[in-house]
């Protein structure tokens, strides 16, 4: 802590700055969000990584680390940087390998009392119908041409093929489709990796969870009512991304950028994982088009998973999913780069905002937010560990002014996977959680042990930091009762 204190200057109860003089080449200062308690568990690599980000060409205002930040590759997870469109770069390392990894939250009109007797059956069926873990394959049988079509048009393809409801599109960031995605810019290898994976959860920290809204956990009754949340309600939350496809897109372009970055564009970087190209260069635009394909694939992945969830609930409760109220709250991406307009030094300016393990958090009034939420702000879904809980927040006006409309995305790990496997036994964890009313179905007990609650930061503290910093507003907290893990 002493060492960190000598580097970071506390500028408010939840913000810490590192001046641009800290490291040669920094173009802007860095700002880390977090409470005193979170700073005590801050992964020290975050400081080096976020100050490396501050050296990238075209970066505006600050390089930001959100309260759940932990070390990543190039950028830390929880890193946010906005680059000038004309002078700045685009970096796959600022978006993450799992392009458009994100969260989807779905309502039901069922209560905990309705679901409790059928919980095991529900989780077991969801585990069967939503493949998870190493080598998981989805049910869609498509050819290369169809895959290319899917990644160019996104979730709309699902609606046209009866894998969703029209209203799902409005409640998905970008309406489930990034425009100008170009499949000519993705490799055959990336298609091979992704073609069987639509409708699959993956592994690691990806999950599908059944959760409950306890009455005492509704913090903003008005916003909760607008969204459709009520006490003792059961909701479904899931977390996954663009699977092997997105990873291959990122790897392909990371390598391409390494070859051109220094020789062709004379850009010096401090970490190979920050490989980048000028946004307006051919290479930069090619990656942007390919990345949009991965963003769309991920929206489709989550849409197909929602389709399966609706099927399972309909089958088990012997009712139409519509009558069970299985409507989406929202789908948010937390690994993206997007062109957005922000006020910088008093002027509105278009920038390419990189968010890696950070959630877009537009405040009230923005056109990008669905009409239903425009008066309250964009829903922000924060996934916690499988043992603790998760949150629904809203974006704020302050997040526009301070963080390029960004906030946290989850808990953030504080313990290595190896250590978690040493400290926790999967079978015991399974039984302990069952005794606490949480039924988990996991591909493996070792994978389960890696995801133990103690391996993560305190989700309540992460959310406290975002609320105290006014970059988010709290709506409700969810507690898990059922979980499918890869």
């Amino acid at each position, binding site marked *: 802590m002493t060492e960190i204190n000598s580097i970071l200057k506390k500028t408010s109860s939840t913000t810490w700055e590192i001046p641009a003089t800290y490291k040669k080449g920094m173009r802007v200062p860095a700002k880390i969000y977090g409470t005193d308690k979170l700073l005590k568990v801050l992964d020290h690599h975050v400081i080096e990584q976020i100050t490396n980000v501050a050296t990238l060409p075209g970066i505006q205002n600050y390089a930001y680390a959100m309260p759940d930040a932990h070390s*990543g590759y190039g950028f830390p997870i929880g890193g946010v940087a906005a680059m000038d469109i004309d002078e700045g770069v685009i970096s796959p390392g600022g978006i993450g390998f799992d392009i458009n990894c994100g969260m989807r939250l779905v309502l039901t009109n069922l209560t905990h009392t309705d679901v409790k007797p059928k919980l095991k059956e529900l989780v077991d069926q969801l585990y069967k119908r939503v493949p998870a873990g190493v080598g998981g394959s989805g049910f869609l049988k498509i050819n290369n041409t169809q895959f290319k079509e899917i990644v160019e048009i996104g979730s709309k393809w699902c609606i046209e093929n009866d894998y969703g409801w029209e209203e799902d599109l409005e409640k998905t960031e970008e309406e489930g489709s990034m425009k100008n995605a170009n499949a000519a810019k993705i490799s055959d290898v990336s298609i091979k990796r992704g073609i069987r994976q639509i409708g699959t959860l993956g592994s690691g920290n990806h999950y599908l969870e059944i959760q409950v809204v306890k009455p005492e956990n509704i913090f903003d009754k008005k916003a909760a009512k607008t969204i459709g949340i009520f006490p003792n309600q059961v909701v479904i939350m899931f977390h996954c991304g663009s699977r092997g496809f997105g990873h291959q897109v990122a790897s392909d372009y990371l390598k391409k950028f390494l070859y051109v970055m220094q020789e062709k564009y004379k850009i010096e970087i401090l970490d190979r994982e920050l490989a980048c190209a000028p946004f307006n260069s051919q290479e930069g635009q090619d990656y942007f088009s390919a990345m949009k394909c991965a963003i769309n694939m991920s929206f489709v992945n989550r849409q197909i998973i929602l389709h399966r969830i609706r099927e399972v609930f309909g089958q088990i409760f012997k009712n139409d999913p519509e009558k069970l109220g299985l409507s989406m709250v929202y789908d948010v991406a937390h690994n993206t780069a997007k062109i957005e307009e922000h006020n910088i030094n008093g002027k509105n300016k278009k920038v390419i905002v990189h968010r890696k393990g950070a959630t877009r958090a537009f405040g009230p009034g923005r056109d990008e937010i669905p009409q239903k939420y425009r008066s309250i702000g964009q829903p922000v879904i924060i996934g916690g560990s499988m043992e603790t809980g998760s949150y629904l927040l809203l974006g704020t006006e302050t997040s526009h002014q301070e963080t390029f409309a960004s906030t946290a995305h989850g808990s953030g790990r504080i313990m290595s996977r190896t250590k978690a496997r040493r400290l926790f036994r999967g079978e015991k964890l399974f039984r302990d959680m069952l005794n606490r009313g949480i039924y988990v179905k996991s591909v493996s007990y070792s994978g389960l042990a890696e995801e133990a609650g103690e391996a993560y930061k305190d989700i309540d503290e992460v959310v406290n930091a975002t609320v105290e910093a006014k970059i988010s507003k709290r709506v409700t907290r969810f507690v898990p009762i059922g979980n499918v893990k890869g």
Partner: protein
Amino acid sequence: MPYSYREDISIADAAIEVTANSLEELFIDSAKALTNTMVDNLDSIKCNKKSKIHILAPSMEFLLFEFLEKLIILKDAETLLFNKFQLEITETSNELVLDGKIYGEKINYNKHELSSDVKAITLHMFKVEKINNNWKANFILDI
């Protein structure tokens, strides 16, 4: 075990250090470390499928990177896991060449003790170096 997990390097993913007496051994043990991250019991993978490997790269680091990436691609594209490797590394005037045969089988949920899915090999702190008469590799797998 010729490889170990470096908890001080990565907490969210798997940072691996491999040491070996020869380059071929280094590549084989790196591949086993990759597979072992996904499957607890390597011996449960039988060798009833064979793939040929032919990779060219400008440096030893990129040769290992491309090799490990190839295994990840085969895992996703053909649901294959490998645990036996016959490899040969040669050098031409301007590049390094990895040739070989790799053996394994299709992923079987009932038989293999599956763990975390490896989604990518990263360049973060990726290093291949010769120390005295031994070879050492460090790399991080994205989980």
